[in-house]
């Protein structure tokens, strides 16, 4: 019971902090709901061209079928060529951090970075169980196996700047929108 409450609390804080950082958080109870959510979001975003990393949740959520449904071209290969002109990047993250509302991943595979940096919108998928309470835990967890991976990344909200007159403006070099779909059981989120 305690564990369930912890998961719920973790998620509640994650959602609060991620939203405060400018991300949009959506929860999906189970895979079927997540699939629906994905289609709904794609319909709203109406991307012509999608780039994505294969595997994991993406496969389970049948992204190719969803892309086809809205008539978008989906690329999962030769991303250096396709990502600069893509309207949307989709990828799964390894960890969520409740304290800061961040998402983190081992991004040693350059594809993971190409889809989350170049397109104007990044849609991130995250399993509810992967949310850890603190930044400290996340960083130590990332390095716990064989030391730090070659490239580990933490993302907190969209790309932003306040360099002109200190006015907060999003979407400088990275995405101007970050959408996070958290997939988990009802007991978790």
């Amino acid at each position, binding site marked *: 019971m305690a564990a369930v409450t912890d998961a719920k609390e973790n998620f509640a804080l994650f959602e609060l902090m991620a939203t405060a950082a400018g991300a949009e958080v959506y929860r999906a109870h189970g895979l079927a709901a997540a699939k629906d959510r994905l289609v709904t979001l794609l319909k709203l975003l109406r991307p012509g061209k999608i780039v994505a990393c294969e595997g994991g949740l993406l496969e389970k959520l049948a992204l190719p079928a969803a892309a086809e449904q809205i008539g978008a071209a989906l690329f999962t290969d030769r991303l250096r060529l396709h990502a600069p002109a893509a309207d949307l990047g989709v990828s799964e993250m390894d960890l969520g951090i409740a304290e800061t509302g961040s998402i983190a991943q081992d991004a040693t595979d350059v594809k993971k970075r190409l889809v989350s940096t170049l397109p104007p919108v990044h849609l991130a998928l995250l399993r509810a169980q992967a949310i850890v309470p603190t930044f400290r835990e996340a960083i130590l967890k990332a390095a716990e196996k064989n030391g*730090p991976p070659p490239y580990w990344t933490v993302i907190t909200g969209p790309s932003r700047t306040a*360099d002109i007159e*200190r*006015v907060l403006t999003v979407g400088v*070099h990275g995405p101007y929108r970050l959408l996070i779909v958290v997939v988990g059981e009802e007991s978790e989120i």
Partner: protein
Amino acid sequence: MADKQSELKQAIKRALANKNLGKALGRFADAYLPARAKAWQGKDFFLVREEIRRAKQKTVDCLEELAEKFVASATSRGAHVFQAKDALSACQYILNLARDKGVDLVIKSKSMASEEIHLNKYLEKAGIAVTETDLGEWIIQLCGQRPSHMVMPAIHLTRQEVAEIFSREVKESLESDIPRLVKVAREQLRQKFLGAQMGVSGANVAVAETGTIFLMTNEGNARLLTTLPPIHVAIVGLEKLVERLPDAVPILEALPRCATGQQLTSYLTMITGPTKVETPEGETRLKELHIVLLDNGRRKLAADPEFNDSLRCIRCASCLNVCPVFQLLGGHVFGHIYTGGIGTILTAFFGSGQEAEDLQALCLGCQRCKEYCPAGIDIPQMILELRKRYHGGRLLPPGQRIFMEKVMPNRKLFHILLKTASRVQKPFTGGQPLIRHLPLYLKGLTEGRSLPALAQKSLRDSLGDAEEFCAGPAGQPVHHRVGFFAGCLVDFVYPEIGRAVLETLVYLGCTPVFPPGQNCCGFPAEHAGLQEAAVELARQNIKAFADANVSFVVTACPTCAVSLKKSYPKLFADDLAWLQKARELADKVVDYASFILRRLGEKDAQPACLSGEPVTYHDSCHLKRSLGVFREPRGLLQKLGAEIKEMTWPDRCCGFGGSYSIQFPELSTPILEQKINDIMSTEAKTVVTDCPGCVLQISGGLDYRNMPLRVKHTAQIVAESLKCKK
């Protein structure tokens, strides 16, 4: 020397005349502290600060060992590490690499270290194009200026100016709409990201044990820069090293919270060895990761015990953001490449030393930066030390220097001169206690504030008629004998504050003793870098109070208290006999408010004559930040029945800073202006403070503006209350 001084003065004048700069910095200063406080919610600043201190102390203590470890671990993970002893060798290494690989476009993310070594200029001279990708840095690059802030390089430019700069670049007339301008930058720089063959970054932290570097950005430029080009060069100052991965955590936690009031930047990247890059043709290959480990004065700094704490700096710019002088001037004047307080120290070691000599004079000594530094660096102390090394006295106007060096240590001469001055000032005072105008070159002194006249009769002269204060009745138990250290301002300008101290001590059953051998505490001389004069004055005071046989030494001037309590033992660090005596005095010194509050407690006296009078309390910098006393005076005033109406920033400096207000009246006045505004917003009728210097400054400012508030030292309020009780 005079030329240098006037150059600095000219630069100050230009900065003050720049209204955009003033407005931008002022707005930022107002927003910074609340945003920062919010970002620290739920996180213990002091705990994190202690963790950073410990982690970085290890860096300072074991710099060679950590550097060796880093080289070994980063190399084993596939990075090339080059140890650059100075700026030139770092630039040469990067240029050679670029030439070898046929690089013609380099993109950069924000890196102070690269600015420190003037990399852009070096590469551009060799025909290699360099583009800054941080928005602020790019703006600065396009208009050929220098960054004015370590975190926000273009804070001094307006949207209209940025629109003009961008319009020139894209050859199209752009409107000054910020989101539109940001979009233009995105489009322009995206092409550079995709076309560059080399990316140059700095690093926020580097981990010796794992060979890892960390990069934090909000815009995402460091992520693109480390993802797209096939070569990544990271320039890492040696001081960025920490031993283990967990040592990096508190730094990563503190940096965004302190720098921009964020829990975390949008992007944090942890790189350990090279990764693959992909070409547009779909080929993948391992990229080249080069790490330039930069010394350029850092080893020398690590070996200097007076200054090596500054290597703990994490470049968050807190010290700039809370500095009242930086808020007026910005980094173009107050800084070279590294700006503000910490910038002054770093410039001395990483730069030529010449610039730092000018910069140190700008420090007001209010110590606010020290309070907010997440690495616990005592910046004001180091600036003072720098001043001593540069014989800062050289920068003083000659008259002032002779006065401090020759006249003040000669007590009799000093006091005769003051007595004479109190007679000749009459034409300016017209018999009034405040001087509103001075002629000619002294005019600056009365700009923005009135000056108090020297008292007709100094405290020490008036005590001549009241023997009991001078010696105390014979046969009194020693613990009741309380020495009174007046200090120059109380003695010669505000004897009424001194009288109030003496009266209240008597009321509380003490026998005040005023040793006539006491002189100036020496603080002004020490802070002007005149070490010998400070030591001589300290000797005179130590002797005067040792002979007086007292168990406490009370002073109504926090600056004197700091001098007696903190500086004297340091002044005699190498002289054991005097050190002992200095410590004995230091142990006895108590500030007025703390002493009285304690005595009131013991006697259970409950005077309540202020009957809810609304007062506002101004914290003197030395009392609050050097002595940690701010609850006591408030407790005392409340015990007396006063209702305290707090102003917005009661501990923001009033701009006095002793001789600072004489040296830089143009800076002191606008700082005072802010204080007056803070005070006026409280609707209190009385301003209370524990420092005669603050009384001078604030009452002068209020008088100049014809504001009918009274400014009182705590001692005067206590004396009034006790009288009314009688």
